[in-house]
């Protein structure tokens, strides 16, 4: 022990001297910070980079969209980690402990973050404001008991039980992916005040479909890590239903569809080539992660899918945009 006394306690129960020593870094604190950073802040950074990539791909002017979406991602995920801290104790114990211990502080940070994001959006106009409210609304429907409570109120006899979206097979991942796709693709347009027509509906549709599909994969990959905990809680996910190998095959197929969408975008010149190249790098990383699903450890599996966007962001910067 670091603070072990050099001699036994005195007769009156007090200790008088301690051995001189160098205190090692508080690994507990470091681990807590790492757990925090690997949680909502990491997701926020990924969201911001993703919006920046799409901004480049759409060819619209830069705006506060990446910051706003990053703030929203932070607040939604921080709130989600606090709300489900006890349920996450098995799959992400460190993050769950951090969320339990600093629940109030995290919620204040999440609330201020969301307020700031909405303020940024309001400054960008009504469309951006409406967009900023979507993730919050989706999260309320997705993770809270609001929908089940409403269902119980509408059907008090219990004949119809409305579950949380988070607990519905495929719909849970699809809802998250949809929210991400809407935020990531629409935010650059809304914050820049650019109508869809001026960019081109086909470009927007291709990017939207791409982000939607990629986000679905990004949501399901960490479910491989959470399979045991999800199964114990009765939550159906791809790994729970089809097993790890089956999930790997399904997600590789989905990524293949995403690759096809990128190819179409390249072929038709629907988006800026540099941005598409960066997205291609991201897709390559994602394919590698999907192929390794079930072999990477839990932490890596939680970070790797989203980390692919950071690689793509670096690639985009390297290309010179």
């Amino acid at each position, binding site marked *: 022990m670091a603070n072990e006394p050099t001699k036994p306690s005195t007769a009156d129960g007090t200790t008088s001297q301690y051995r001189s020593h160098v205190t090692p870094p508080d690994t507990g604190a470091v681990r807590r910070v790492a757990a925090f950073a690997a949680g909502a802040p990491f997701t926020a950074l990924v969201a911001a980079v993703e919006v920046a990539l799409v901004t480049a791909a759409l060819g619209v002017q830069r705006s506060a969209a990446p910051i706003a979406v990053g703030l929203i991602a932070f607040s939604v995920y921080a709130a989600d980690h606090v709300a489900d801290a006890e349920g996450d104790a098995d799959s992400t114990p460190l993050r769950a402990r951090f969320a339990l211990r600093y629940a109030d502080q995290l*919620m204040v940070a999440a609330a201020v973050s969301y*307020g700031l994001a909405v303020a940024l959006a*309001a400054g960008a106009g009504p469309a951006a404001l409406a967009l900023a409210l979507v993730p919050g609304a989706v999260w309320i429907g997705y993770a809270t008991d609001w929908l089940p409570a409403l269902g119980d109120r509408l059907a008090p006899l219990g004949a119809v039980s409305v579950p949380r979206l988070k607990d519905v097979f495929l719909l849970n991942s699809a809802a998250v992916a949809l929210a991400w796709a809407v935020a990531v693709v629409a935010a650059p347009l809304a914050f820049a005040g650019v109508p869809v027509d001026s960019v081109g509906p086909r470009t927007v549709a291709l990017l939207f479909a791409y982000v939607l599909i990629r986000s679905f994969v990004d949501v399901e990959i960490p479910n491989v890590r959470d399979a045991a905990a999800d199964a114990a809680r009765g939550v159906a996910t791809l790994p729970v239903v089809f097993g790890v190998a089956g999930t790997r095959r399904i997600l590789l197929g989905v990524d293949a569809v995403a690759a096809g969408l990128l190819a179409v975008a390249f072929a038709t010149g629907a988006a800026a080539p540099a941005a598409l190249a960066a997205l291609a790098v991201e897709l390559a990383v994602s394919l590698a992660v999907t192929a390794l699903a079930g072999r990477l450890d839990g932490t890596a599996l939680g970070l790797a899918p989203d980390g692919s966007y950071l690689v793509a962001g670096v690639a985009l910067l390297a290309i010179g945009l």
Partner: protein
Amino acid sequence: MAALSPLSVALLVAVTVGLAGAILAWRERPEPGATWLAVLLAGQVWWATFLVFELEATTLPAKALWYDVQWVGVVAIPVGWLFFALAYTGYDRYVTPFSVAMVSVVPAATVAVAAAGDPGNLLAADRVVRETAVGTFLDVVPGPLYYIIAGYTYLLGAVGSVPLIQLIRDDARPFRGQSAALLVGTAAPWAGSVAYLSGAIPIPGLDPTPLVFGVSGVAYLLALSRFRLLTLAPAPRRRARQLVFEQLHDPVFVVGTEGLLVDLNESAAETFGVDRRAAIGEPAAAVVPKYDAVRELDASGDDKPRAIRLVGRDGQRPYEATIRDVVDDHDRTTARVITYHDVGAYLGQQQRLNVLNRVFRHDVRTETNLILGYAEQLRSDPTDERAMSVISESAERMLDLSERTRTAGELFDPTDESEWRPLPAVVDEAVAEARANGPDARVEVGEVPTVPVREVLVVVLENLCSNAVRHNDGDAPWMRVDAAVADGWVEVTVADDGPGIDPAEYDVLDRGTETPLRHGSGIGLWIVKWGVDHLGGRISFDERDPEGTLVTVAVPIDREPSEAGGDGNEAPEPPADGPSTAGGSVSRRTPPDAGR
């Protein structure tokens, strides 16, 4: 979108802080006031957000549109404020769907008018876009509905502030801090609104109210985080205090300075059979038991507690009355709280300890000395029959004393509710015991009504009947038991023609305590007294003519639960009324021919 104006930036700061506060407040549901605080803050955020759109819009129709949309937030604020203040401070009984609907009528009508395009220019008589140094504003000339909703907003704001201002004077620092932060958060926009309506703002069209929502938001955030606004809400305190008052086992009356009854708790209503609704407002002397005696005790300034015997649901019990002044912040007495504490169990325990101590120290010691002395005599003369007889009698008395002591310890446990039995069965059992003790005695039983009484009465009557027979030195001892029912009580009399009871015994029982010099003999009469006390009854001793004793025991009979409390029936007075004493339930009546 072009660069934002400084005013818009200030408003967005208010949006940030306000929305953060609203989310945190919403998270605290169902804490008292959480939902309504979220509504209040959401209203502020709504107003500020759409004011940004109005400021940034460039055309009159666009500005007018965003101006009309703002009404949703504008009218939500006072409604949220009022119901937050009521729920947060514990006046949640006023927060009902009906009251919310009623309070929301004017705001809803205002929003409807705005949504309908302000027909008849009710909200705005005229709208003009004005270019100023700080931005382009929509200058609105208020219509009649504008002033109505403004006045209504001020009214709701004032009503909601009243309970919060009360909290500022609270002893608890957190509540003072919470209240102060809330009032600052509310006063800031109010000040802005007053400045706007009074024309104090030099820039036409600039309503500074939403601009200071940032101050409100910071104050509310401070209250939420620093003063734990919703996690440490004072709302339960009013309920808790009311609950304590209502659930207090002791009967409590609150008497105003004019001598009228202001309040009483459930225990008081039940114990003394008082109809609460009818009693409040009545003169205290007509409702509060022994009110004048209690006031006299209080006026005497004697701090020594004294018991007052009162008749309530459980019969006659000794109560210790306490009077406390209710004092306002200016040290003025506004009412007096009279609390009756049932000390019957305490007094009974005290008496039992006192008597048992005497029995051990005096009676047992005396008998033991007797046995030891005669045992020594037997050593010298083993054929001494008298010594053997004395030892035997003494040992029997000790055995009898031991049995009675056990009875006293077991039967009169205040926490033990004995069964109800018909009075004839109780009398038969007691009489059978007397017959066993005195086979030669003439025992008569008069008319005994079939009413339910507590089983403890068996012990009381057994002792009285046995004493009547055993302590009668006559050749043909006689005793008679009669009973009669009157007004919820049964009066059982045990008459004998014996030598009578020594008045010293009465005195000791009457006083309730023994001293080394003044004490009773044995424990039998004490058991009788404790039994009667336990039953909430009273006992009296009379001398018979020409000789003998008449003991009257009055105890309450079983009454239906509906009669027991709160139905307006007065608790019956015991038939044998005597002077109420602190000592207990014993009284001595002087017979008409007691001059001998």
